[in-house]
């Protein structure tokens, strides 16, 4: 376990590292001794990295590292082709006769030779050489996400099937069941929850600063009860989601990770609804930072199942008779 002081130092280093976003986040983190940090306290380190990334609105492919690490493929590749938001948790690729139909998202340009992709029920490593990408665009073009949309000859594409699909395990001992895509999704969802909460906390800070300095009717608008209560409510939502994300690490199940990501998404929606109102016209202007936080939070919510998609899925399971899981809180 990392103590408060070490964690503070780590956050400082991460913040510095993210001020000038490195092209190769995996290499930059490696320089920071990330492997040792993770070995010491993976939950605290991952939470810090993604909260800082959200707070500073930096985009990197750090999320790929989380999934690749979970799958045990760190020595094989460092990148992931994520499912398109419309497809929730995936897959991002389907076999179609001898061809493979790919539709997914990459968080930054594919410079590596290979990437992980959820292929049908399996996880595969594909060669990225023949893959063309184009900017995703949409709500938050600054995120720099790219769309992969292609149909490619399977023989030229597949490097190795890792899990399922009758493929050979890579880096997995005989008889062991390798971590699958569901585990990678769970790990990525915990990270995304923290990133969404980093964005949300920053939105509360931006709005708080605004209502302290902006005066109307001779008073700071932050002294009006309706304004104060909106920000207090946003704060409470963030506090609840942060506690749940920490619990999702203790609990460890995909269910808990899904719940944490959904609750973070709801919290962000609450926060920005209030923040945009109290920031008035400024909040809607291009120069003011709030719209970037609105955009980023919603974009992150859309990846690997939005809050709404997860609520629908979990509610469906409860209706089908699942006893409501009590997330392990440690």
């Amino acid at each position, binding site marked *: 376990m990392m103590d408060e002081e070490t964690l503070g130092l780590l956050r400082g280093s991460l913040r510095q590292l993210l001020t000038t976003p490195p092209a190769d986040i995996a290499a930059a983190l490696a320089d920071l001794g990330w492997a040792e940090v993770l070995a010491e306290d993976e939950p605290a380190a991952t939470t810090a990295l993604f909260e800082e990334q959200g707070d500073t609105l930096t985009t990197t492919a750090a999320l790929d590292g989380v999934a690749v690490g979970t799958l045990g493929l760190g020595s094989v590749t460092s990148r992931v082709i994520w499912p398109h938001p419309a497809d929730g948790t995936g897959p991002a690729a389907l076999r179609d006769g001898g061809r493979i139909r790919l539709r997914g998202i990459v968080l930054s340009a594919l410079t590596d030779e290979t990437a992980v992709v959820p292929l049908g029920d399996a996880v595969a490593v594909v060669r990225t050489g023949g893959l063309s990408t184009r900017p995703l665009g949409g709500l938050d073009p600054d995120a720099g996400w790219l769309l992969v949309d292609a149909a490619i000859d399977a023989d030229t594409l597949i490097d190795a099937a890792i899990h399922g699909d009758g493929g050979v395990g890579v880096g997995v001992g005989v008889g062991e069941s390798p971590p699958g895509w569901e585990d990678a999704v769970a790990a990525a969802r915990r990270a995304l929850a923290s990133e969404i909460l980093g964005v949300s906390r920053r939105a*509360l800070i931006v709005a*708080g600063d605004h*209502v*302290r300095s902006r005066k109307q009717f*001779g*008073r*700071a608008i*932050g*002294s*009006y*009860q309706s*304004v*104060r*209560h909106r*920000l*207090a*409510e946003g*704060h*409470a939502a963030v*506090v*609840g*989601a942060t*506690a*749940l994300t*920490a*619990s999702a690490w203790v609990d460890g199940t995909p269910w808990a990770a899904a*719940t944490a990501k*959904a*609750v973070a998404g*709801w919290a962000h929606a609450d926060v920005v609804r209030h923040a945009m109102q109290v920031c008035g016209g400024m909040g809607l202007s291009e120069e003011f930072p709030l719209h970037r936080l609105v955009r980023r939070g919603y974009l992150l919510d859309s990846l690997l199942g939005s809050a*709404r998609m*997860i*609520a*629908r*899925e*979990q*509610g*469906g399971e*409860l*209706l089908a*008779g*699942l*006893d*409501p899981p*009590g*997330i392990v*809180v*440690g």
Partner: protein
Amino acid sequence: MLTAEDLSTEDYRAGLRSWLIERQSALAPYRSTHAATHAELVTLGRQLARELWDADWKRWGWPRDAGGLGGGPLHRAVLYDELGGQGLLLPETDYVAEVLGDATIRFAPEIARKLLADFVSGREIWAQGFSEPEAGSDLASLRTRAVRDGDDYVVSGQKIWTSNGYLADRLFTLVRTGTPDSRHRGISALLIDTDIPGVTIRPLTYASGLDEMAECFFDDVRVPADRLIGAENAGWGVAMFLLQFERGMYAWMRHVWLRGRIRELAAQVKATDTASAEALGRAYQTVCALRARSAATVRRLAAGEMVGPEASADKVLLATAEQTTLDTARQLLFPAFETDPAAEGWRSDWWYTRAASVYGGSGEVQRTILADRVLHLPAEDGRERKG
């Protein structure tokens, strides 16, 4: 006999769980979720509390000086979690015991030594007499007076919204011992037996018909001075200490109850459409956020930390979870909620959850505390705030 040091909360959980499963059929009466009257529900809860006490499970979490076996709030949190996990009710008296128990131990160890075990084991009922007709969220304006006369305090005044009040053996009250305008500096905590002449208690019925609350009148009631909890005029500190447990442990208990309600709702709802699933899933998720946050707060309390103003976030999350869950029940049970006599339990709970943003400091008070003391926003009177 095992001591708390020998029994980790995880071992406690495992032992308790197998005991509950073994006694599944004997515990069946405690599986009901809605009694015809509040008094019946309280009686059921007291019987369950007694069984758990006699089997020692309920003695864990309370100090040996108070008749317990040691351990702390974490053992109690596990007890409630496991009861809920087995679909059993939580004793009504424990909602109050969790708010008052630790404060009694801390500020009046002698009273705790003599009386607390009877309360926690369900033998007697205590209630909390804080609110007054003119002092709700603005608690520091309370007016019930206690004047020292020899070895007694003479108490006159009125309390209202006292949960379990008309069933109570003792009332844990806040009374004014300072001057009328002394606000929080002139308040004391006093434990008043309800059989003392001059105490009159009348049930107060909720809009739902639930007879849970009461109003209490004190007409020159002579209370022995050794029933002071904390020093004279130090009652505000007692109240602030105790409120931490209301924000932490009470919220934890309510989340256990809500999880049970979601389980029952899912079992009753016939719909399988995506809108219903989404609403139910979202309600469940608000309960999960409450679970995680209140667990963290209970852990801090168990470690002896003062939780402070951040606990107001817990209270906001509690009200959100309660109201979202029962609003969802109302919607998903349409039209039974409106038309079916058998859905009275749901209607009653729906009304009760409206109180979650009112009692223990209204939602407005909680948001103001967060705005002032956590977010450090400008004060409401418009003056600049430092820090």
